[in-house]
């Protein structure tokens, strides 16, 4: 049913897949996510909708192999099927609800970190298709981890790169890059940051200092993704919110990142054991205790 039509390696451990999922493709909007399961025993894995083709019923996901389930996903081939693909979930980005004229009047900056580039791409593409010019800073640890360069260039007005080791673009992380642009006199009045939580946290501290209202996309732990379990809860402005139904996008100045990062470690030990079992196969005894 949910057949993988194309599969491509975008960078180290980063995969792109186009999957046949007409119900999701029919309604997905930038900012929303979906949940996949590899097989009937699979965990429910939330992933951002990175692109959609309504006519052909295809959706695009881009994922990084970080643990056992994403590793198993990466072992699927073109022509294989996911057991489940459900979505679109969460609220679309607020940007797509604004009148285009209002968007055009704004100076919008996207900050994309690592695999967070793919979710940014979907929004940038939508804005580009609607004639809204937007800038983007794309960051990674090193050059070879930068993904979707050509696609990003095609939809951004100005695309800046930032690498921690200086191997490409600005030497430094995305915050260094933003500060540099600001010092050069470039101004923005709206910012969207998507990437690892730690990056979003520091980017928000900077945009707050600079006074640029900022939206972030929170990749919390999830189970159902429909508001039923509360696993995805986080504190925004001191209030409990559910990322899957109230988000995944939130006001970045209001999110309690420290707590969100802490909560994302909840199942680390168990996930680690699963990963070792998967990579070491039958040779994994679980007796040495490293995985505990």
């Amino acid at each position, binding site marked *: 049913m949910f057949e993988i039509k194309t599969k491509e390696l975008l960078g180290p451990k980063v995969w792109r897949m186009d999957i046949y999922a007409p*119900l*999701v493709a*029919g*309604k997905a909007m930038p900012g929303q996510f979906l949940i996949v*399961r590899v097989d009937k*025993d*699979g*965990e*429910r894995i939330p992933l951002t909708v990175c692109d959609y083709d309504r006519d052909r019923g295809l959706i695009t996901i881009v994922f990084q192999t970080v643990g*056992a*389930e994403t590793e198993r996903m990466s072992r699927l081939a073109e022509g294989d099927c996911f*057991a*489940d*693909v*459900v*979505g*679109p*979930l969460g609220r679309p980005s607020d940007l797509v609800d604004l009148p285009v004229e209002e968007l055009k009047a704004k100076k919008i900056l996207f900050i994309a970190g690592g695999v967070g580039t793919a979710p940014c791409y979907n929004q940038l593409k939508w804005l580009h298709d609607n004639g809204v010019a937007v800038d983007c800073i794309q960051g990674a640890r090193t050059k070879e981890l930068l993904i979707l360069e050509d696609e990003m260039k095609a939809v951004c007005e100005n695309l800046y790169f930032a690498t921690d080791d200086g191997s490409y673009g600005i030497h430094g992380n995305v915050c260094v890059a933003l500060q540099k642009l600001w010092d050069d006199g470039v101004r923005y009045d709206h910012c969207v940051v998507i990437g690892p939580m730690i990056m979003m946290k520091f980017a928000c501290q900077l945009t707050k200092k600079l006074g640029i209202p900022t939206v972030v996309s929170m990749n919390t732990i999830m*189970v*159902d993704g*429909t*508001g*039923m*379990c*509360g*696993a995805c*809860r*986080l*504190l925004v402005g001191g209030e*409990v919110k559910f990322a899957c*139904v109230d988000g995944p996008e939130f006001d970045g100045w209001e999110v309690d990142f420290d*707590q969100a990062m*802490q*909560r994302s*470690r*909840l*199942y680390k030990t*168990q*996930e680690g054991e*699963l990963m070792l079992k998967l990579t070491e196969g039958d040779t994994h005894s679980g007796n040495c205790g490293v995985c505990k």
Partner: protein
Amino acid sequence: MKIDVFKKVPVAEQDPKVRATNFDEVNLGYTKEEAVLEASRCLNCKNARCMQGCPVSINIPGFISKLKDGDIEGAYHVISLSSSLPAVCGRVCPQETQCEAQCIRGVKGEAVSIGRLERFVADTAREMGIKPQLPADMVKKGKKVAVIGAGPSGLTCAGDLAKMGYDVTIFEALHKAGGVLVYGIPEFRLPKEKVVAKEVENVKALGVKIVTDAVIGRALTIDDLFDKEGFSAVFIGSGAGLPRFMNIPGEQSLGVFSANEYLTRSNLMGAFSPDSRTPIMRAKKAVIVGGGNVAMDAARTAKRLGAEVHVVYRRSEAEFPARVEEVHHAKEEGIIFDLLTNPVEIIADENGWVKGCTCIRMELGEPDATGRRSPVPVEGSEFTIECDAVIMSLGTSPNPLIKTTTSGLETNKRGGIIVDESEMTTREGVFAGGDAVTGAATVILAMGAGKSAAKGIDEYLSAQ
């Protein structure tokens, strides 16, 4: 076998010590001999009081008398006239406050064990391969009806409509059909493969299509169902899945879960099995907050996953909303009850993990408007229970997703969808029932609402 007519024929159960370490069903059910013996206790009353206690008025003496004669198939058909999920209801209905509470036998002794008999009939019928069937004279209506949610209300409504000749499709948000029966109620009370999956198969066998992974309000709206997909009526049976939290300090700590999350991981995702790919916390000492069925299920699940379990409830045992049988089973399994106690704060260690739950003692005050004595805190009585997990089961409310994406659909102040006598909502052609209307209630009420909505839909569509 001789019996004491004032007492129920006892039913075999797994030994508490053994069952507290496994997820197999606790109650083993009657043998045929025991069932017929228990059935013989029924007086076959003319004005059967038990039927008045049953929310769907099953002809109880009717099925019991067939059973007495050993006619299982006949007994099954009598029940089927009013209930489409007897194997489920026989296991999870609160008979002690419904049919059995009214049974005339209960005046001088114990009521007839109606629930166990219902379960016996349903299980035996299933083993014999007896299934609900499309009526021989059924004529296809040529109209499509959409059902949202594959819980008890949706499955029932869909099954009944299919029997009337409608072309029915159920849209279910999760990857498995069953609603609370698959994600909430644990395996040890309601086996998933043996019972729930079979009930779902029966509904499919009537020609109902079930589309899983379909979130209505997102993938398709109710407007789409009418305008693009060609449905003539819609039934909403989306349940009441939104968990509540207490809003006390420390509730975001690692190790604090909603009962829904904990139970969904264990039941729907099978995390109780070491082979599952979905993780679940195996606590050493868990505090469960609440006193309903959900709290009992969370407590008994945590126990089976290896924890010492304390149930903390702010009222006294008399006010427990949970079924008596569940509380009794929980106690047998060694679960500790801290009554008239309410959490005020959750304490975390330096890494954010729960290390204790501070509670305050309560006492019962004057009866309030509803006659229930409401608990009031005893000042200065705070104390801390050391623990590494806290599971909140404080009740749930309906998910607002469908309401916010459907124009003309009104809800009451608690989020329940408003319906008229035929179960039609404020939007023409859209019907609703079960927990989505009433808030968290029971399987039998949800099933009853599904039946009555099927009737309402048939009347509505026939008048067109």
